[in-house]
């Protein structure tokens, strides 16, 4: 080889940063168009700000005695979230293993599983809750089933993406000693992903605690039922207590889960 190496010249697009500029322009155009199409009026937000402050004033006098009544439904909300997340996770594990391209080489199985998971994820949780309230009636069963399905869709995707990043070396080693597929997964896959699995479980639990307060609003059990009732009765003192209590519970759960996840990863 002769030593005649030159710095290669950049292409036109690279030199003038065509891609990022074009991307920004398209983004701005999309924003302007969609706000016009959807008839979003920013002026209206400020015009009605007085109603918001009015509501705040009325809520500024929390009926603290209401706390003893909402204690039970708050507890129920957390239980719903834990139950729903756990059930969803149990179903998510086999599906995520089957959806991982480094474990399942059969493209047909993998794609069928992925399509199922995509479909599950497209269902909005409020829609699911509405359907299950219609089936199971008002109460926490509808909430748990909704959260289980929602968690299943979300966790499956998070899990299989984790599985696809693992080191394949140990898998090769276990296959070379004559291990069955299930044994390979147990010895070479699970130890590599367990901490990330737990972390994603906690993350989903956080989301579900928040989601279950909203789901209750349409009758799926928990604190949301009481929130809706107090608003209907214009009992703003009670509303304030519910909102504050929920806020504290969510903060506590988030705090615990964040702390655990930091330790794990």
């Amino acid at each position, binding site marked *: 080889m002769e030593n005649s190496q030159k710095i290669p010249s950049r292409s036109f697009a690279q030199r003038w940063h065509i891609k990022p500029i074009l991307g920004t322009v398209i983004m701005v155009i999309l924003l302007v168009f969609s706000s016009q199409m959807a008839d979003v009026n920013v002026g209206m937000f400020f015009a009605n700000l007085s109603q918001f402050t009015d509501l705040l004033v009325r809520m500024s006098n929390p009926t603290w005695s209401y706390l003893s009544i909402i204690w039970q439904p708050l507890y129920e909300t957390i239980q719903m979230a834990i139950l729903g997340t756990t059930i969803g996770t149990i179903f998510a594990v086999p599906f995520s293993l089957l959806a991982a391209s480094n474990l399942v080489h059969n493209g047909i199985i993998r794609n069928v599983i992925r399509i199922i998971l995509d479909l599950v994820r497209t269902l909005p949780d409020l829609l699911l809750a509405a359907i299950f309230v219609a089936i199971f009636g008002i109460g926490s069963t509808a909430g748990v089933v909704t959260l289980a399905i929602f968690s299943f869709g979300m966790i499956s995707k998070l899990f299989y993406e984790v599985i696809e990043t693992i080191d394949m070396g140990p898998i090769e080693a276990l296959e070379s*000693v004559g291990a069955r597929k299930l044994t390979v997964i147990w010895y070479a896959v699970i130890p590599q992903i367990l901490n990330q699995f737990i972390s994603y479980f906690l993350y989903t639990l956080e989301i579900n605690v928040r989601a279950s307060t909203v789901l209750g609003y349409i009758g799926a059990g928990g604190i949301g039922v009481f929130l809706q009732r107090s608003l209907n009765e214009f009992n703003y003192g009670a509303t304030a207590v519910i909102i504050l209590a929920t806020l504290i519970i969510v903060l506590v759960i988030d705090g615990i889960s964040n702390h655990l996840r930091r330790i794990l990863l």
Partner: protein
Amino acid sequence: MAEEPIILFEHVNKTYKNGTIGLKDINLSIPKGQFLVVVGLSGAGKSTLLRTINRMHGITDGKLYVDGDEISQYKGKALRTLRRQIGMIFQNFNLVNRSSVQKNVLSGRVGYYPAWKSILGLFSKSDRDKAVRSLRRVNMLEKLYARADELSGGQQQRVAIARTLMQDPKIILADEPIASLDPKTTKTVMDTLKSLNQEDEMTVIVNLHSVSLAREYADRIIGLRAGEVVYDQMIENVKEADLNQIYQTEEDS
């Protein structure tokens, strides 16, 4: 030296799906108890050759005998039974980092257990003792309960050898076992392989880059280039100049 071949390649070819030729008309007879070193450039097919023996790679055509049985079409249980008699050692050790040394070593034995027993960790007392003996053999017993990622590279490779010993293998395949190690640990690992060959009468096949190590440890050296065996000599007939030729690329010549 024993004369009965434990591994026999007859006109073995391997072509990858994308058309790349992995192995080309390999004919090799490897007698029981031989210490065989395979040398050649990266991409010459050394790893492929090694992995056809325990069928981690399939072959396209030809016949491949291990211990008298034609294995190229093995599936399921027959394949697992074949693999558990053949130990494999890797360049990157391939231990499970987050698991203990003990669990890593015991995992070498799972081929002898039904899936549910190995998942529940129900290893027999004699196999647990065997794990202790295997680790003692490679001088790593003190690390029994350490996590694999706490160990240095040389220590990890010794644990990997202990894992292989759990299989009671007749054959050990080592794919560049010392490529990520320093010279001192290289010697320890190569000496261990040599002792398995001489004291335990295992057939050992090692892929190496280093010609000097090959000359030091091998009974026989074969050279691969572009998937073909271009050199095959017993150690007493090996000449330095021949070996250098194996490493010659087309650009050089």
